[in-house]
């Protein structure tokens, strides 16, 4: 089947079998290997991308189901070489070690920050922990990930104030 998916703002087209998973489409066709393919059972969260603005696990979506829709991957976070605050937060707070879960974690957290920004506030620690509960990190013990999201929320609020 011929499928066209807008990935990070660019249309990507390819003939695929209906059984092709979105995670493989993203990694193979435009070669965006930032999205990681982990457990394959929608447990680990390494493959989280935004589908029409909402975080989803791309190992459990068929590429044909995303035909005509918009996908944002971890490569779509930075704009013109400028890191997204969530990326800087992960760097500042040492929120990764091996880095395998990181793209999924950042995409889940980016969605949380967007949702809370629309409500005009930063997420609570409980909300951060709930948002990342669909991801598994075997390195950090999650403490630094929570700290990174808090850092990003505070800095985004600051940037907005200055602007």
């Amino acid at each position, binding site marked *: 089947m011929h499928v066209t998916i807008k990935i990070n703002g660019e249309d990507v087209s390819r003939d695929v079998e209906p059984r092709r998973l979105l995670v493989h489409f993203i990694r193979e066709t435009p070669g965006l290997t930032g999205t990681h393919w982990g457990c394959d059972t929608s447990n680990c969260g390494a493959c989280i991308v935004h589908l029409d603005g909402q975080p989803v*696990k791309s190992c*459990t979506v068929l590429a044909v189901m995303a035909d005509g829709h918009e996908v944002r991957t971890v490569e779509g976070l930075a704009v013109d070489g400028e890191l997204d605050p969530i990326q800087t937060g992960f760097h500042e707070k040492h929120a990764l070690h091996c880095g395998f879960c990181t793209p999924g974690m950042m995409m889940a957290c980016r969605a949380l920050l967007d949702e809370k920004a629309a409500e005009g506030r930063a997420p609570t620690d409980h909300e951060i922990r709930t948002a990342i509960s669909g991801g598994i990190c075997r390195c950090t013990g999650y403490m630094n990930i929570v700290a990174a999201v808090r850092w990003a929320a505070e800095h985004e609020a600051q940037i907005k104030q200055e602007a």
Partner: protein
Amino acid sequence: MQTPAPCGYERASTVDGAIASLVELGPTARIIAGGHSLIPMMKLRLATPEHLIDINDLDELAYIRRDGDELRIGAMTRHVELLQSELLAEHFPVFADAEEVIADPVVRNRGTIGGSLCQADPSEDLSAVCSAVKASVVIRSAEGERVVTMHEFHVGPYVTAVGAAELLTEIRIPIRPGAGSAHEKVERRAGDYAISAVSAAVWVDGPTFADVGVALAASGPFTIDVVRAAELLRGQVPSEELFEQAGQIASEDSMPMADSRGPIDYKRHLVGVLTKRALRRATARALRQDI
């Protein structure tokens, strides 16, 4: 690498179109909604549809609304929408209780109530919720619609009353005065199967229970409607002793299996405790008390 077996795919643009495709393609075709039960089953070859009919474009099946004395939920309503619905929270807070602990927030963005019910996994929370609140479901075919109770809907583990050429379109819940409801679940971590989960709904009339529903998930080979507990409570004045007795009955009527989540005696004990807690919380909500 886990990948589903080869299959065909088409997108339905109307409910009638989806049903027409089911009729045309025969019993090897399957409806796919959120896909968060079906795709993992396909990867494991536990489901081997030859053709998928995608109903994600059917916005007409995504709604939560009141219609007279009924709440109506469209089959394509996603978990996140059930969690956030003020209308549901007002009438049946049991849904929000359950949705907070169904899978994880990212999975809840995709999974649907219709898909969850049709999967009929014995560990699935919404089947217990719908049984407790005495919901019925609307099943549509080329011939028309039929409405069945949850008891009729649940044929067995992973088997429902929905036929090969039929589509579950709506869940209906009667709104009656004096309602209170709650869901209690114990799981090892987010996204894991529950060790056990219990849904309770009560309807209070004056000092006594006019009606009660108690249902168990992850406590046997299918969703268990604890009819004996409901019979015990109906017409009685709420009390801790009664909740204790109802918990005892639920514990007896559960059919848990020993697995890595615990032995049978532990799970039976847990069913009793969760039943008591769910009834206590449902009753407090019905009576508008703090707990």
